[in-house]
């Protein structure tokens, strides 16, 4: 089967968050970038597992500049077979979705995977947008996926539990935790990744309907109030009378 995994580049989980240009731009100085963990740990690894048991190919797709090749090579090192980078600035969710759906017009896949969200923008929007633009079923927050002939059996996280779904292929799936376990690329994978194809294609023209006007950091906490470990009545009093929370 042919599986497409759409991956994003995000700052490392430990990266410092700061802003430049009058708080309108993320300060990338000294920041290490990684593959978005939801794309890597859950979507990519599950796609590779399915390929290993059923045959076929895993293609990774990224929308972004040449600087993103480093995370694309990592996806190849983990086990994807080939990669495509659409050479366009990933400005808004909808513009990225248009880039991906335009690519899908000439390339067909049985399964299109996303991570459930990116850890920088936290929008959870692109998967659903691509599904709509490509006219495919969309399953959000999917924590398990097994193949059943030409259908996929998918667990979707819902309030207080899971919904077990059956969906005909092709479909678009946004993967959440539980879908797979992180894989660390080994030396052989890293060497092989260098020889795997990475095609760069031009993007299409898109329109930006939203723009960021200002970033800000959360207010600092005022400082912790320490409570004597022997005196939990005092903590309860603080929570009820001062914080008014219980």
């Amino acid at each position, binding site marked *: 089967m042919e599986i497409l995994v759409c991956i994003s580049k995000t700052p490392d989980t430990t990266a410092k968050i700061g802003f430049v240009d009058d708080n309108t731009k993320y300060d990338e100085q000294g920041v290490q970038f990684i593959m978005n963990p939801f794309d890597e740990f859950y979507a990519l690894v599950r796609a590779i597992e399915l390929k290993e048991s059923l045959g076929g190919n895993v293609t990774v797709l990224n929308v972004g500049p040449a600087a993103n090749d480093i995370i694309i090579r990592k996806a190849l090192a983990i086990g994807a077979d080939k990669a495509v980078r659409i050479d366009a600035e990933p400005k808004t969710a909808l513009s990225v979705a248009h880039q991906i759906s335009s690519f899908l017009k000439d390339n067909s896949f049985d399964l299109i995977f996303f991570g459930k969200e990116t850890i920088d923008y936290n929008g959870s929007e692109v998967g659903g947008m691509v599904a709509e633009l490509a006219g495919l079923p969309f399953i959000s927050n999917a924590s398990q996926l097994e193949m059943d002939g030409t259908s996929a*059996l998918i667990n979707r996280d819902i309030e*207080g539990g899971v919904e077990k779904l059956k969906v005909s292929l092709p479909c678009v799936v946004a993967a959440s935790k539980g879908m797979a376990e992180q894989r660390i690329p080994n030396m052989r994978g890293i060497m092989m990744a260098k020889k795997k194809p990475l095609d760069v294609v031009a993007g299409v023209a898109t329109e930006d309907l939203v723009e960021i006007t200002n970033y800000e950091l959360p207010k600092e906490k005022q400082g912790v109030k320490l409570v004597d470990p022997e005196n939990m009545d005092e903590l309860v009093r603080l929570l009820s009378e001062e914080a008014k929370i219980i």
Partner: protein
Amino acid sequence: MNILVFADHLNGKLKKNAFEAVYYASQTAKKLAVNCIAVTVGNVENSKDLGKCGASRVINVPYTGNFSTNVYVAILAELADKTGSDVIILSGDLNGKAIHGSLAARLNAGSIAGVIEVPEADNGDLIVKKGVFSGKAFADHKIHSAKKVISIVPNAISFELGGAEVEVETMEISCPAPNVEVLSVERVEGKVPLPEAEIVVSGGRGLKGPENWGILEELGQILGGEMACSRPVSDVDWRPHSEHVGQTGIVIRPNLYIAVGISGAIQHLAGVNNSKVIVVINKDPEAPFFKAADYGVVGDLFEVVPRLNEALRKYKS
């Protein structure tokens, strides 16, 4: 131009998130001097209550099938058209996340998910504030397009039920067949999903093993809170993945977050630092979590938590 807001229900009763979304929509409508039209889908007992949090019209769409993105997108897109609504508001709960992107693409709308405050109007544009970097920062976005789709973070908006009930209008929409088939639903009744929980009790490696979770579960029960855990704990299967809060798990913003035996790595803090009040219980006074906490207890959790449970029981009675 009007504002359309989707109000979801669970087993026929409107969800708390539905009231949050409708209240948010009505506040936005007030700012723009337009109408706030709330939509419910399927059999809902209390649709008329949406008037109490500001909806000027409430429309119910009869539907007996299962939840499916394509059906709900079709209903909301058609209603947006029928009611002349340019702004569509959703709760960013799990169904909202399933609808948002597809609806925005269908309408070619400026799309912002994860909004935490009522927007500012700016000559037909809206400026909305959303959380970014998994809770480590906020960003204002200007939406230029005529059509706008906005979803709000659960627990970010506190609503008031001040207004009057409104008569519910029934409107038939010809919607497509669902393109996913629901085989079964496994749900623990009464369990609140973590992003929507008001009180969350969370445990880390300091608990030393899954067999020691009893005292935390007791704390959760006394407070009526939900259970969560740190990543290392779910990675070694002491607790299920669904309880992992943090940057690569679930991002939450409860009123009260009690962290027990969690050191407070930056990835964990990212997922919880928008909680209104944070209590940290840890034996290491140098644990970074204390810097992000409102109240801290430096001590052995196996002594402190039972003592806290006792004190809470006394307080509750």
